[in-house]
């Protein structure tokens, strides 16, 4: 047998003694790394939007928006208010999670007025006649430093009269 090269220990480097588990560790890590894109296919990391509804006798509120986002993403929330009765002064009240660490690029159509109620953003949408739908588009971009889970509850009012609420949270991945 040729002389064993310096630095080579046959038991360790040829017979792989004490290294038999290494291959399994490596395979496990490969599976874990491969799991990330697989989970992404199932929308775990965003940004596929989904529908949420809240009903009341006077009006229904529907929201189409993603619940999972990532830093830097452009995304849209679409609010649809369907009036079963005349709404004299429809108002949406949004939790601060809607704007905290987000850049609001546009709100269309522009609300009649904006305000703040107990730290929440209030959008005054004006009159929604009975049987009609009011669709509000809001477009945002996630600021790169915005990470974590934030409440994004939405409340619908007619003037000062509470109609319905929608509970939701958004999860933002780095």
């Amino acid at each position, binding site marked *: *047998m*040729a002389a*064993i*090269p310096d*630095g*080579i220990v*046959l038991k*360790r*480097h*040829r017979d*792989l003694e004490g*290294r038999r588990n*290494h*291959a399994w560790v*490596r395979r496990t*890590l*490969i599976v874990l*790394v491969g799991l990330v894109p697989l989970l992404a296919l199932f929308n775990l990391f965003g940004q596929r939007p989904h529908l949420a509804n809240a009903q009341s006798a006077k009006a229904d509120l529907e929201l189409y928006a993603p619940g999972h986002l990532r*830093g*830097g993403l452009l995304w849209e929330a679409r609010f649809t208010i369907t009036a079963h009765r005349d709404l004299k002064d429809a108002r949406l009240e949004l939790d601060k999670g809607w704007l905290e660490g987000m850049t609001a690029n546009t709100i269309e159509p522009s609300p009649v007025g904006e305000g703040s109620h107990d730290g929440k953003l209030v959008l005054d949408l004006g009159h929604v006649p009975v049987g009609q739908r009011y669709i509000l588009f809001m477009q945002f971009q996630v600021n*790169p*430093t915005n990470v974590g889970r934030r409440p994004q509850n939405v409340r619908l009012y007619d003037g000062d009269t509470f109609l319905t609420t929608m509970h939701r949270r958004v999860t933002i991945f*780095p």
Partner: protein
Amino acid sequence: MDLAIRAVALFGFVYLLTRIIGRRELSSMEPFDLILLIVIGDAIQQGLTQDDYSVTGAVIVIGTFAVLQILVSYLSYRFPRLRPALDGEPIVVVQDGQAIEKNMKRERITLGEVMVEARLQQVSQLDDIAWAVLETSGKISIIPKQ
């Protein structure tokens, strides 16, 4: 601060990838590997700096990477027990002209690849190889018989 955290996270992820992908894949540079390298670099850059175009941001990221690289090499030097995990270990794939199949299978190396390396080192026959060792860099060292 988040720039440094992102740099640490991505350094760890890339380091992990280089350790688990397999050393042969890392040492070869086929045309597709070159494209892959550019795409990975671009994806990492976007995740790292995002909308930060500042010189300060670049200095933070490069500084973090440099410190981590020095830290890894220091740990490898100072603590030999960590060396197999951080740098890997050589594997003997041919001894006395005999291929060690289980070791080659483990590292997904064919006899053809070993012989390519052998020819590059002026060894034409498998029988003439005393030792072929897959090094931690992914290169195969060929030691011919005397």
